[in-house]
């Protein structure tokens, strides 16, 4: 199964090994692992300490949108295998949130497809993050730069 939405952690090494096992035409696997950061807003300066992150999602629609993203990535690049694992529930700094991986005969397709997966997932998969900070819990706001990153791919539709 190429799409999984789960509360449990995952084993990156085992998942990547399983992705290419038994298919010697795969020349490379590119992957991205998203982690819970201990600071909000990403810049360090001006950010707040984050002690936990809770991911809410829309069961049913999440799987449906991730399947649509997988279909889109497969239409754009010649891929032998695609994997998306996304966790939900309460996570702590350092915990894994998401794994995206693409296997292809050549590295360019694998790298580009993996980048695309993350850009589209960030703007289309129905997940919402709530951070626990010293000032209390607060919902993470969507970033405009994420929309721009996704738009970049829209301009080069297959």
């Amino acid at each position, binding site marked *: 199964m190429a799409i999984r939405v789960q509360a449990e952690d995952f084993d990156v090494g085992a998942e990547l090994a399983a992705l290419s096992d038994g298919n010697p035409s795969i020349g490379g696997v590119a992957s991205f692992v*998203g982690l819970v950061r201990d600071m909000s807003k990403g810049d360090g300066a001006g950010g707040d300490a984050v002690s936990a992150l809770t*991911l*809410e*999602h*829309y069961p*049913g*629609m999440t799987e*449906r*949108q991730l399947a649509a993203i997988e279909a889109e990535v497969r239409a754009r690049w010649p891929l032998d295998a695609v994997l998306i694992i*996304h966790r939900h529930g309460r996570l702590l700094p350092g915990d894994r*949130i*998401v794994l995206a991986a693409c296997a292809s005969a050549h590295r360019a397709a694998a790298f580009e497809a993996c980048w695309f997966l*993350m850009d589209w*997932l*960030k*703007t*289309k*998969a*129905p*997940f*919402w*993050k*709530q951070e626990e900070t010293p000032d209390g819990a607060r*919902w*993470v*706001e*969507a970033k405009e730069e994420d929309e721009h990153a996704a738009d970049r791919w829209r301009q080069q539709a297959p």
Partner: protein
Amino acid sequence: MRILYFAWLRAKIGTAEEEVAPPAEVATTGDLITWLQSRGPAYADALANRAVVKVAVNQDYVGMDHPLAPGDEVALFPPVTGG
């Protein structure tokens, strides 16, 4: 018609889902939001800024002019922040 709310929309409105029977003149998703806003201060506050309200009907993203049918599952939520 079943309506689901997520993230801060759920928190502000105070429920994750409800069954509603809007009047016949509520024909589109935009009409539905206008009608929901009239249901009380919590709804009015949560739905005040449509720029930050996303809508899905039967688990697909739609615009504010999407037609509604009685058995639809409508979800209202803020812009997504996964990944």
